[in-house]
């Protein structure tokens, strides 16, 4: 079955089985191995991708559901060759250890900040609660997301001042 969608900003058409899991399509057919699989049943968030800007579990989505959607994976998250502020904060603040949860966690953080641009620490924790991490204890992940939100606040503030 031919399926057309926008992948990381580029229109693509793939020919695949409609009932293949999206995580398999991404990893095995499109070579985008940044999307990880860890549980296969929606319990860990490692396979999180953005579908029309909203976080989704690619292990619980079938290929047919990609039709006409705008998909972002971690590979398309850098902007003009520069790290997205969330990625940058993850690196700087030490939110990355083994890194296997990182792509999913990063995209979950993006979804969260889209919904709540300046979340409290509790809101950050709640927003990331679908993404398991076994290395960090989450604290530096929360620190990183908080710093992006704070920077967003700061930037919004300085833009206002610039006017």
């Amino acid at each position, binding site marked *: 079955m031919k399926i057309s969608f926008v992948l990381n900003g580029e229109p693509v058409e793939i020919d695949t089985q409609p009932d293949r899991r999206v995580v398999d399509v991404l990893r095995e057919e499109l070579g985008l*191995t940044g999307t*990880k699989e860890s549980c296969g049943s929606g319990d860990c968030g490692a396979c999180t991708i953005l579908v029309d800007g909203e976080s989704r579990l690619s292990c619980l989505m079938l290929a047919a559901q990609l039709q006409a959607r705008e998909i972002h994976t971690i590979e398309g998250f850098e902007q003009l060759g520069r790290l997205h502020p969330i990625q940058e904060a*993850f690196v700087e603040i*030490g939110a990355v250890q*083994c*890194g*296997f949860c990182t792509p999913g966690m990063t995209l979950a953080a993006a979804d969260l900040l889209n919904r709540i641009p300046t979340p409290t620490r*509790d809101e950050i924790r709640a927003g990331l609660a679908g993404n398991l991490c076994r290395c*960090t204890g989450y604290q530096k992940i929360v620190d990183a997301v908080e710093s992006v939100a704070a920077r967003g606040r700061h930037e919004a503030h300085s833009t206002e001042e610039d006017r």
Partner: protein
Amino acid sequence: MKNEKHDPATEDRSDFGPLKGRSLEIGISLPRADAYGKVTGRERYAADYYGSDLVWAAVKRAGVPHARLKSIATETATALPGVLGVLTYADVSGSNRQGVVRKDQPVLVNDKVRHAGDAVALVLAETRETARKAMDLITVDLEVLTPVLDQEDALLDGAPLVNEDHADGNTLLKGEFRQGDPLAAAEACDVVVEAVFETPRVEHAYLETEVGWAQVSDSGNLVIVVSTQTPFRDRMEVAEALGLEANNIRIIAPYAGGAFGGKDGVTVQSLLGLAAMHARGRPVKMWWDREESIIAGTKRHASKMHYRVGAKSDGTLHFLDAGLSFDTGPYDHLGGVVMTLALEHGGSCYRIPNVGLRGRAVYTNNPIGGAFRGFGVAQVTGAMEQMMDLLASRLDMDPLALRLKNAVRRGDKNAAGVTLVHSTGLVECLERVSRHPMWTGRSLWKQSAGPFTRRGVGIAALMHGSGYGPLVPDVANAKVELTPEGTIRIYSGVVDMGQGNAATNLQIAGSILGQRAEQMELVQPDTDRTLPSGSASASRCTYTFGNALIPAAKSLKLRMLQRAADLVMARGPEEMALIPGRVRNMATGTDIPLARLAQFMDASERIATHRFRAPTAKDPVAVDEQIRLHGFPHTLYSYAAHVACVEVDELTGRVDVTRYLAVSDCGKIINPQIYEQQVQGGIAQGIGYALSEEIVVDQGIIKTPDLSTFIIPTAVDVPPMESHAVEIHEDTGPYGLKGVGEIATNGPLPAIANAVADACGVRVFTNPLTPERVLEALSRAHSHDGGSA
């Protein structure tokens, strides 16, 4: 797709993103070198190897805990279109046995099924789906045997034997340690407390489940890319099990997606190797799904521990007697070593003159017990630190004061008979805690609990030995190269499974050689390229490898300066200095780019290596040679003191950890960020161990085979954590450091158990402290009007 028959080696990472331009100084929080590749999704884990013409390998598992294998019918499965072959033990030409100490685990079952996760047959297929279908078509004829399901029943006369060839029946290993005269000492105590503790079997739950990729090269060599902690040991194990020469096997270990001890030893390796040998040169991938990972992988040992501790009326510890029993499942794996480390740490970090410790690891038909961060110490510390609180309560002493009174200091003999000749910062940790508001303000905080809420604060003191113990050489071999391109390449023999040693290596070598990140390259463990350096385990990675890397880097530095001095006719290397990308003649100010210098050096000169062997305890401790061989005792210990604040809900028994404090003595710190990561991550795992994690096994079958039933903490289950370091310089450590990898994992179970007991006035002796157990204890306390803690 990638991975056609070209070199599958990991890319030598030289793009460290935001680290670019930074000076690699010791003691500062630099971003990790591996973070950039991981946060962009570019890092290639073992899970990310595919390749065109890929063959999928999958394992048929026994499904019953104990049975004699009569026959395996594979014809129907083999006939399924898309199936390339179905292999059984008959296809294994080596010993078909793997194991770290005692080699008792079959690659594919040939005589008996010893646990439900045993591998019975191996399917090679064009797709994963076909492999799964084929598995259902394999018929395994088994004669079911009575399973051994309980570690006490296992030792009864007439109990079925798990491994008939083992001389000690179902006792894999037992050991005893004695100092002083415990029998007489018990009588001489003013107070003796006694308790029995049970801790659960626990799953590592790394995000990257067991996975690997393998191929037989054109020259006939077997290449395995695998998520492992032990590439060099894997090579020997696979060789022996499959009947190959070790030097015809190459193991490549990319960054692992978590391991925590669960990849300390063979998982997919031999099976994958066997599959590749039957794949006609095609690449083969095996990736256990979550359920298979939980069913077939190793677990933290379930334990039962009987403790008696006695003290004088002033709180001086006088006596300890403990019996420690560990369910090791059907195979040794590292069960004997885990039990031995538990034995050594049975009396934890205290001066106790009279000690009697007995430990045993017992074969059963339950899941395999193996290495897990904490490695036996998590269990015994859980028990001993609760004993300290029981004792404090009986003596009506402050629990911190009791610990401080008995805490080991440098020069003391600890409870395992080891004279502490290295840095010993426990007292400093405890004193720091004693001044912290979480401790000093605890009464006030407890009083202001809301409705239906009880608050409690608990403490735990910790000690964790690092390295392999007195006999097994704890060795690392570092290799550093000035490449022809003028970069510095570090060949690490120790896997980075997330602990950050690769980044630390970069920092160490970069600092010594005066180079910035962009002049550096990292090579991850690869038996063809890097040198044997032991396992990524035992809180040893940076201690042992760092101690090898520093002299290697210094030796390369001197050679570079000497050759540069010769080149510019300077008086000697003391006139030359390494600066980023160059060597500078300090007298003239002229620079030689490293790439140019490299041209003047022979390949053999551009590489420096150094071997380091960690120091061992010289104490003539009273244990038998088997126990010494299994690692008793260590000489170097890290220390810590932890505090947990909890709220217990009276209506549901739910325990909420609200704050957590860790003060650690792990020596000096090379990178504070990585240090904190280890402490925070360890605490979070410990919180799961304390409150929610338990692999439930019924009749040898795991009832919690996925992440919806095996409950690890989410972001909302972990409280704000505070980590402080008592930075005492350890003379033998690289830049004064000691191991930090495991110790934090050991604290939460006792600290939380003590906090819950403080809150409820009653203690639960079985972990995890599920709401159900806590509510039951609360109602017990209620009906007995307080009861005894």
